[in-house]
């Protein structure tokens, strides 16, 4: 009843090609944004903000990055963790080399370093395809991991070998370091993630995004219609690594507070790949759903099992959680192999024709 586009006429090409052509969608988006920027920081407790919302947004950003590469361009990558690490270490080097530089500028610039590294490791992608490419990106992952451990210059010859985040402020409010409140960190991350999602959405709806998708659907055909494969694939690697790099920098500076190289291991790469596949390959909103499910599900299960009041040792809860997550991944794939974003779309379509489905 409420969700219906009847009577909304498009009078210009711009209106016809809008990303959200239905008015209710635009209103819904505005409500979500207001809730995220105003409602959540006011209502949610510090614990929820710091443990649930902050990581969720960061993972969603990394998932968007991988989705641009894997979902939109069809290049399977297992090097996400490494590229996130490049972003984090670049941000650390930048902010210690230029202590007066605004921290947000540092974070956004560190992505550029990650994107350069990503483009270099994307070079084999013209020759190698499919699962073969996945293994080629694994070499990036392990090589970068090794660099993080073996090159002390990256952590300014710190004895611990870990990144120790210095205190940085924005408009006089502490953003990083132990004194930063969860509200401030959440708002900074939310602003960056919203901005970058908006950029990604525009990029993917334009010429660049269409060439990505043409390469994904069939690269030889794409080449025949005049898309330069090498440029497109390298661009995809660069853009994707930029997002992963920024996510990595955010992760260390605004979430962990300090990080050892092990954080950017192969597990992280796999985790983000899960999010992309479970969310939906080739969907921005799916990246958010995927991050929420993969990151949120274990937390919910752990707390849920605890709340049942059963006397189960913590280790057993951990194992049961792992088993349940594994089982649910398979179950989700069986129910809807195209991911959560497809379920969302189906739901919207059902709502549109309700109460007279045809």
């Amino acid at each position, binding site marked *: 009843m409420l969700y219906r586009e009847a009577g909304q006429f498009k009078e210009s090409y711009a209106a016809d090609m809008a990303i959200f052509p239905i008015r209710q969608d635009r209103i819904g988006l505005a409500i979500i944004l207001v809730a995220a920027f105003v409602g959540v920081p006011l209502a949610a407790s510090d614990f929820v903000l710091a443990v649930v919302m902050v990581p969720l947004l960061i993972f969603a950003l990394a998932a968007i990055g991988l989705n641009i590469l894997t979902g939109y361009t069809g290049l399977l990558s297992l090097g996400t963790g490494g590229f996130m690490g490049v972003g984090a270490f670049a941000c650390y080097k930048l902010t210690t080399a230029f202590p007066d530089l605004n921290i947000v500028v540092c974070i956004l610039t560190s992505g550029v370093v990650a994107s350069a590294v990503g483009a270099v490791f994307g070079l084999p992608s013209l*020759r*190698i395809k*499919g699962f073969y490419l996945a293994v080629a990106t694994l070499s990036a992952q392990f*090589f970068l991991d090794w660099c993080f451990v073996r090159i002390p210059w990256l952590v300014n010859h710190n004895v611990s070998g870990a990144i120790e985040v210095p205190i940085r402020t924005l408009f006089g409010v502490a953003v990083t370091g132990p004194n930063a409140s969860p509200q401030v960190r959440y708002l900074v991350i939310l602003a960056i993630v919203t901005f970058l999602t908006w950029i990604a959405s525009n990029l993917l709806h334009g010429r660049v995004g269409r060439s990505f998708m043409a390469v994904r659907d069939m690269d030889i055909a794409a080449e025949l219609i005049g898309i330069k494969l090498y440029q497109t694939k390298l661009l995809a690697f660069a853009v994707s690594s930029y997002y992963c790099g920024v996510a990595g920098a955010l992760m260390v500076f605004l979430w962990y507070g300090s990080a050892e190289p092990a954080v950017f291991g*192969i597990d992280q790469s796999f985790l983000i790949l899960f999010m992309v596949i479970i969310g939906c390959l080739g969907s921005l909103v799916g990246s958010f759903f995927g991050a929420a499910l993969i990151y949120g599900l274990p937390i919910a299960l752990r707390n849920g099992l605890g709340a049942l009041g059963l006397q189960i040792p913590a280790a057993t809860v951990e194992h049961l959680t792992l088993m349940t997550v594994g089982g649910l991944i398979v179950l989700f*794939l069986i129910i809807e192999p195209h991911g959560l974003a497809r379920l969302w779309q189906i739901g919207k379509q059902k709502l549109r024709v309700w109460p007279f489905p045809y």
Partner: protein
Amino acid sequence: MNLLYAIFIDPFVQMGGAPDLLVQTLWEGLVAGVLYALIALGFVLIFKASGVFNFAQGIMVVFAALTLVGLHEKGVPAFLALAMTIAVMYGLAFAVERLMLRPLVNQPDIILFMATFGLTYFLIGLGELVFGGNPKVMIADALFLPKGAIEFKFAGGFVSLQKIDIAAAVIASIMVVALATFFQVTRIGRALRAVADSHKAALSVGISLEQIWVIVWFAAGVVALTTGIMWGARSEVSFSLQIVSLKALPVLILGGFTSIPGAIVGGLIIGIGEKIGEFYWGPLLGSGIESWLAYFIALVFLLFRPQGLFGEKIIERI
């Protein structure tokens, strides 16, 4: 100039100067290669028959070894435990086919790949829940596996070969020959090859895909058990073995996803290349290069042959 010397001349001088060390390193590389090849063999079996890139092969190795040791700890005689473990692997293959592969038939590769991740999580959870997460010692004595080392003189030095390594190499060879015979001679083996060639054509001549998948996953399970016993006897049975199994990936791409000889040759190249590289060139870069060298070796091969050494040629049509 010094750097060039250190890269191109010095390692070879070292090799020439101490041939016993070279032989020792080669042997260690060979043994590591055999074990990589065994893990890769499990991947190839499943990939050939069902097109599934089975990420869970690594955890299947751990799970099989854990089941064996865990059963023995509970007082089951060693060889009965072995038989029971094989039964468990059959049950696993059956469950995977029924609960995972059958509902997901005809889905894109990446979805099936993802499903095997789910399986990995499930098996890690289950293994830790039933047998505990602590490293265990493989029951090498009870299975009559040899131990100790043979030392012999070579070019003015000593080379020592662990007996368990020799046993691993022998068992791996027997296994490969047995599998190859199975594929070539038996009726089921021919059905397996038919399925690998084309699912549709195999279905149309009356081969049951479901049955074939169970058999293939079971065969991969037995390979996993063998790998687990061998690797466990060399070090210990723990979940860190799963990380080692990632090393099978460069072996796979080197050999080609669809080729059993490829898995073996690839395993040997990676194993030897990795050990030689680490021993002679590693100190230049501050050691630890073993972690990524394998992937780089594979990458270099791939740039020249994108389908791997023995893979089927990739033909693309519009």
